[in-house]
């Protein structure tokens, strides 16, 4: 497990406390580690309060491991900064946008 990645680390902690698992794997799907829909719905609620990130059902199903879900969460937390950069007039000409 990559403990140097803060998102992975935090998500692992969440998952460990929810699943009560000792052998938590960050590269194995939640479902293969015994998750059912109740547990996954709870996980998404916890992610929402911990990270302030809303994850859709499909995003979780397509990224069903701690590692891949951490990337989804990070992408959701990034865009506000990225948009600020893009809005600077010298980098983006608004007339060029569709």
């Amino acid at each position: 497990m990559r403990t140097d990645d803060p998102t992975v680390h935090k998500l692992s902690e969440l998952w460990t406390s929810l699943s009560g698992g000792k052998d938590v794997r960050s590269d194995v799907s939640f479902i293969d580690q015994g998750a059912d829909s109740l547990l996954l719905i709870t996980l998404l609620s916890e992610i929402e309060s911990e990270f302030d990130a809303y994850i859709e059902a499909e995003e979780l199903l397509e990224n069903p491991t701690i590692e891949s879900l951490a990337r989804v969460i990070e992408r959701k937390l990034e865009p506000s900064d990225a948009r600020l950069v893009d809005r600077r007039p010298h980098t983006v000409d608004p007339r060029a946008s569709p």
Partner: protein
Amino acid sequence: MTDVRLDPELLRAAAMQPCEDFTDPILARRAFDRATRLSRALRGNIDTAGLDIAARSIPRTDGQTIEVRTYSPDSDPAVPQPLLVYLHGGAFVAGDLDTEHVRCVHLAREAGCIVAAVAYRLAPEHPYPTPPEDCMTALRWLIGDESELNVDRTRVAVGGSSAGGTLAAAIALMARDGGGPALALQLLLYPVLDDRARTHSMRSFTDTPGWTSQNNVHMWRHYLGRDHAEAISPYAVPSRCGDLRGLAPAYILLAEFDPLRDEGISYASRLLAAGVPTEVHLFPGTFHGFDVAVPDANVCRRAMRGQIAALQRAFRIPAAG
């Protein structure tokens, strides 16, 4: 807070019931629908053998359509079949044709009747009276010739869970008052019936799994709109109907630790006083939506058998075995 003693088989699911906040109906709908899609993705295939499941679009008077899913058991095409129109829950603001797909499959297969689930329009975009009007439009179309379902019009029932139970009870009132159709049964599963929040269960159950008194206040606000202080129609709030005589026979299922419990008991006892044949089951140790949360628990199987038996009696279908 009342001591909540749940059935041991329901404990885990109760602890994990999402505590969605219905203050904002759009956020609540998003979370509700996400949970439905996750459950559907993980539950695997359910056995639908012997059923023809079809999507239908029913015309509305404004030129749009109401989406309906019909579950038709294999049967002799020459023999008219009984029909249950089933209305999902979701506090009037959430839910769709997938919300109660599993229940609809079970009821159609095991009771041996056609089941039609209706995607009525939702509040707050479409508050009362749109939802019950959509349901009545769908019901009348389904029993008509245009649907080609070959429904036996003497064996038509309406049912629903939670807010869908409100709509089912409203349809029963509208059918009695407005020229039919005659209904063989109103199947009300932990129904929402009263906006006045006067009961013990509604006052006490502020923290119960599945539904809370606070969310109940939000739900009625979204459904009735803000300016509803005077003259609330009984078609919006069935408990406000002063005269329950002549209504369709009722089957009412209630959960012990549900804020809606006592308004269900009260409605049942008023139906009985009005001479309406009424069967009431209160399942101990259960919470709002318990049978959807843990369908395999013993108490949920009992609840399902009760619904099937009630439909078969109402439809005069001999029970299997």
